[in-house]
């Protein structure tokens, strides 16, 4: 099978941010030798492609592992901190890799087991459904009369099915206008959450940087950099019900996912 090696190699070394990088020792598969040996290589994960370079400074990758249809598991090798990438095909070889320590190994196993296009697609579909459900629930809530909130509060909801609110229309920093008494507008507009005196929800936890990773998430192109988080203030009875309902579902899903993680599935 031919692969456009030059283009793929170009992708490996171009500016696009990597999802995970680091040194790993890779088991060398030699059929005519006894015993196993390992070679230290520089690994770069981009999307569902795992590249490895002879040296960190090498300008071209030595090899590529396409991460579709594989599982990543800890393995019982003589080496500590070893894990393997195994493919569904019974006759296929496994890639045995050894990390520098426990934290590095865990970070790699996590990153690799969630790297496949299939997995990403699964998560996106799931989020699509969740957004739909959240919109529906909120729309259902809106049908019943609400307590009025403080004027001057800016808020954004992207569901076109929502009833218009009684609040003053506001213009937003990035030029998008959402609320007007005539109706509501769907779309990607956001607003900073201005507190009219009521308590704000707690801020989101700070981003944790993993020691082994030098990956930096770049701002997604197409999304306005002025977008800020604006959690919906929980001032309605309806909303706190939604919160509880959501929380229960998430607790169940989290348990299921944690169990699956333990079994080594992505």
């Amino acid at each position, binding site marked *: 099978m031919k692969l456009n090696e030059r283009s793929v190699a170009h992708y490996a070394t171009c500016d696009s941010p990597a999802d995970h990088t680091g040194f790993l020792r890779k088991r060398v598969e030699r059929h005519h030798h006894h015993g196993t040996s390992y070679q230290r290589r520089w690994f770069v994960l981009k999307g569902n492609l795992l590249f490895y370079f002879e040296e960190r400074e090498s300008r071209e990758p030595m090899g590529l592992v*396409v991460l579709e249809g594989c599982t990543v598991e800890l393995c019982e090798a003589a080496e500590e901190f070893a894990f393997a990438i195994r493919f569904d095909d019974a006759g296929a070889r496994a890639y045995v890799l050894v990390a520098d320590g426990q934290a590095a190994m865990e970070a790699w196993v996590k990153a690799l087991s969630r790297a496949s296009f299939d997995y990403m697609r699964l*998560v996106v579909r799931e989020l699509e459904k969740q957004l739909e459900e959240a919109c529906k629930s909120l729309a259902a809530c809106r049908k019943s009369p609400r307590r009025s909130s403080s004027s001057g509060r800016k808020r954004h909801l992207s569901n076109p099915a929502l009833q218009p609110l009684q609040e003053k229309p506001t213009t937003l920093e990035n030029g998008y206008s959402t609320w007007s008494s005539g109706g509501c507008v769907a779309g990607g507009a956001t607003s900073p959450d201005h507190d009219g005196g009521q308590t704000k929800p707690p801020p989101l936890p700070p981003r944790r940087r993993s020691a082994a990773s030098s990956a930096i998430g770049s701002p*997604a192109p197409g999304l306005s950099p002025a*977008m800020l988080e604006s959690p*919906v203030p929980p001032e309605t009875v309806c909303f706190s019900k939604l919160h509880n309902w959501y929380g229960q579902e998430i607790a169940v899903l*989290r348990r299921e996912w944690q169990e699956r993680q333990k079994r080594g599935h992505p």
Partner: protein
Amino acid sequence: MRYNERELLSLARQPAEKAAEIRMSVPKKGSVLKKRLVKLVVNFLFYFRTDEAEVGIGPLAGVWEQQQLCQDLPGAFSLSLAGFIEEPERKYCFECATEEQCQEWVEALRRASYEFLRRSLIFYRNEIQKMTGKDPLEQYGISEEARFQLGAHRQ
């Protein structure tokens, strides 16, 4: 560059997002349009030779960015090879039976990029967070992954 060819072959045989017989040419000098079975599987584009007993497989660049894909004429689109800036004519050309078929392929290829998936994920995450105040990625244990952050403005 070594790669896991066996797995790529296996991937090529899997159910495709899109598959059709299309006339296409490869980025080689003197290449002419030939009918090939073109198959899109995840973010890989494969083509198979159909006129030979032995099926040959040649995947196109496994990754492409939107700027490499362009719709040239109403019924045709092309995929430029990355890493060949000095040779802009290095591209795969596809001639579809109808304009509609062409547009379907362009749209399918647009959605087949890993970057598109990543942006979609970030978008949905942000929307859900705004609506419900909760991070939907927490249940998956991936909320802290760098690849899903919304850039510098993330708290």
